[in-house]
C-alpha cells in the first residue's frame, strides 16, 4: 500500500484476512493454493471489471475535488485565475463542461469529456493536459519500470542467497531488508547523490536522459521497494523450503541450489507478483520525489508543479493516468499469476 511512499514491513500481512479483495489477493495463498476463488482467467476478467470501476471512481473523486476547489471551476479548467483567461475562453469552457447546468448534468458532461480524452488546459505548463502527459509519461514509466525490475533482482537475489543459510547470513539478509524498507526515498536519494555523485564523482548528479543518469534515481526507488518485497518473498521462500516436494527433490539428488532456483523460487515470487501491482502506484508516488531530487523530467515533476500552482486540470489528468496505470498493472499481474501458477489454469 500503500504504501508509499515506502511501506511498512507488515504491509503485505495487512490484507491477509481479506479474502474478497480482487487486487490485493491473499498473500498466503502461494504455498497452499487454497482460498482462491474461481479459475485464473476468470480472475483476470474480474480484475478488468474492477479496474473499470476503479477508473470511474477515480474520475468521480477528481470531479468532487474540482468542485471542492474554492472559486469558479470554469476559470480553474480554463487555466486558473492566475493566467487571466479571457471572457470568451471562460464562456467556452463553461459551455463545454456545462458549468452553468445542475451538478448532475455537469458530472455526466465531465465523464463524457474524459471518455473523449479532453482533460483541459494546464496553466502551469501552458499547454493541453493531454500533451503534457504524452510528453512526460515515458521518462516516468522508464524510471518506475527499471526501478521495479531492479527491485525484483535485488529481492530474488536476497532470498536465494540468505534464506535458510547460516544464522549470521540470514540475520544479515533480513536485517538489511528491514533497514532498506524503512528508508525514505528523498533521504536515500540524497545519500546516494552525496556518495556517488559529489564525493566519489562516479556519476554526474543530473545525468540527463542517458542510462548513466537513470542509475541513481532507479536505485533510489528500487532499494526501499526491494527491502519490502524481499520480506514477503523471504517468508514464502522459507515456507516453500519446508514443503515435502523439496525433500523429494533433494532425495532425487538435486542440489540445494537447484531446488532453490527450480522449485522454491516459483512459489516465493507469487506474493511478490501481487505486490508488484501495488508497487506501481507507490513507485509513481516515489517518482514525484525522485524526479524533484534529481531534476528529471516526468509525470512526478509535472504533478508537483501542478499542485504548487493549483493547476487543477493537470492534477486531475495526472491522477487519472496514475489510476489507469495502476489498473493496467494489476491486469498484467493477474495474467502473470496464471502463467506462474499452473494450478490456476487447471481449475478454470
Amino acid at each position, binding site marked *: 500500500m*500503500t*504504501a*508509499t*511512499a*515506502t511501506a*511498512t*514491513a*507488515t504491509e503485505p500481512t*495487512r*490484507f*491477509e*484476512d*481479506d*479474502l474478497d*479483495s480482487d*487486487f490485493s489477493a491473499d498473500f498466503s495463498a502461494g504455498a497452499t493454493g487454497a482460498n482462491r476463488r474461481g479459475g485464473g482467467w476468470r480472475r483476470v476478467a474480474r480484475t478488468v471489471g474492477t479496474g473499470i*470501476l*476503479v477508473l470511474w*471512481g*477515480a474520475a468521480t*473523486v*477528481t470531479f468532487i*475535488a474540482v468542485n471542492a*476547489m474554492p472559486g469558479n471551476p470554469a476559470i480553474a479548467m480554463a487555466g486558473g485565475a492566475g493566467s487571466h483567461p479571457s471572457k470568451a475562453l471562460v464562456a467556452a469552457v463553461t459551455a463545454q463542461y456545462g458549468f452553468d447546468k445542475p451538478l448532475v448534468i455537469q458530472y455526466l458532461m465531465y465523464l463524457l469529456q474524459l471518455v473523449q480524452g479532453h482533460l483541459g488546459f494546464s496553466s502551469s505548463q501552458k499547454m493541453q493536459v493531454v500533451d503534457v502527459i504524452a510528453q512526460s509519461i515515458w521518462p516516468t514509466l522508464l524510471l518506475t519500470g527499471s526501478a521495479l525490475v531492479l527491485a525484483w533482482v535485488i529481492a530474488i537475489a536476497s532470498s536465494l542467497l540468505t534464506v535458510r543459510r547460516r*544464522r549470521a547470513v*540470514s540475520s544479515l539478509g*533480513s536485517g538489511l531488508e*528491514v533497514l532498506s524498507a*524503512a*528508508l*525514505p*526515498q*528523498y*533521504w536515500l536519494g*540524497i545519500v546516494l*547523490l*552525496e556518495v556517488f555523485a*559529489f564525493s566519489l564523482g562516479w556519476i554526474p*548528479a543530473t545525468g540527463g536522459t542517458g542510462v548513466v543518469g537513470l542509475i541513481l534515481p532507479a536505485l533510489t526507488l528500487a532499494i526501499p521497494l526491494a527491502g519490502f518485497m524481499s520480506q514477503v518473498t523471504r517468508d514464502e521462500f522459507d515456507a516453500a523450503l*519446508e514443503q515435502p516436494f523439496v525433500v523429494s527433490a533433494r532425495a532425487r539428488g538435486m542440489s540445494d541450489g537447484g531446488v532453490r532456483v527450480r522449485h522454491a523460487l516459483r512459489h516465493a515470487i507469487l506474493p511478490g507478483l501481487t505486490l508488484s501491482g501495488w508497487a506501481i*502506484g507507490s513507485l*509513481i*508516488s*516515489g517518482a*514525484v*520525489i525522485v524526479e*524533484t*531530487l534529481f531534476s528529471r523530467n516526468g509525470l512526478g515533476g509535472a*504533478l*508537483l508543479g*501542478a*499542485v*504548487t500552482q*493549483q493547476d*487543477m486540470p493537470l*492534477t486531475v489528468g495526472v*491522477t487519472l493516468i*496514475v*489510476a489507469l496505470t*495502476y489498473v493496467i498493472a494489476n491486469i498484467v499481474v493477474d495474467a502473470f499469476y496464471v502463467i506462474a501458477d499452473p494450478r490456476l489454469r487447471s481449475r478454470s
Partner: protein
Amino acid sequence: MTAIDSHTSLSGVSSRAASTTRLLGRLRIGPILSVVFLLFLVVAVVDPSILTHYQPLAVDPAHSLEAPSVAHWFGTDQSGRDIFARVVYGASASLSIGVIATALGMAVAVILGVIGGLGGRFVDGVISRVLEILFAFPALLLALLFVTIFGASVTSLIISVGLGSAPGYARMVRGQVIAVKNAPYVEASYVLGHSRARILRQTILPNAMRPLLVLGTLGIGQSIVWASSLSFLGLGAAPPAPEWGAMLAAGRDFISSAWWGEFFPGAMIVLVTLATTSLGRYLARRLEGRGSEA
C-alpha cells in the same frame, strides 16, 4: 526474555517454535535499542533543553553551513542555526504530526471497517468497492490532490496523510471484524441475550482491534515518512519552524555543499521508522504467540 524463549520451545510444533526462538534471538537487541531511542525522543519532546544548550531559532551568520564538529554535533544550517538543537526541538512537532495522522487514519478505518464487516452484503459490497477505488490512488497522490484543494499547511498535511493511510487500515479492520463476528464466543454472547450494541462494544471491537495496536505502531513511522516527504516537496510546515520535514525542505538547496542539513533530519526519520517497525514486529510476535497458546 528467557521466559518467552522457554515458553516457545515447549509449545507444540517444533519447527515453528524453533523459528520463533531464532527470530527472538536475532532481534532481541532491536526492541531494546528501539525503546532507548524512543525514550530519548520522549526527553526531546518533554524538555529539549536537557539535551542541548543551543536555541533552535538562534541565528549565527558567522557560523553558517559549518560541518559537524564538537561544538555543533550535526553542523549548522545556512543561517548558522545548530542542526542538533533543531532536530531535538523539532521532535515534538514531527512526532505529533505522525501520531495525529495515524490516529485519524485509524479512526476513519475503524468506522469504515466495522460498517463494512457488520453491514449486510450490499453495504459491505459498497464499502469494499470504495476502499478498492481509494486504493488505486497512491497515498502521496491523494495527499497532493488534497493539498491542491486546501493549500499547503500543517493541518492539511495531517489530514491528507491520515486519510491516505485509512484505506489500508480499513481493509484490515474489515477482515478482522468478519473473522471475529463468526467466532463461537460471539455466538455465545448472542445466546446469553446480550444486546447488539453490547456485543459490538465488549466482544467484537476489543478482539478485532488487537492487530491494530501493531499496525498503529508501524503506522506512526510511516506517517512521519509521508508527512516529511510532503514537507520535503515544500507542501508542509514552513521552513523556519524546527520540524524535520521543514528542515529537509530548507536543506534541499544546499545538498551539494552541506549534506548534513539533509542527512541528520532524514536520519532521525529513518531511526523513528526503524524503532517503530522493530517494536511493532516484536509486539506482533508477542500477540501471535499468545493467540496460538489460547
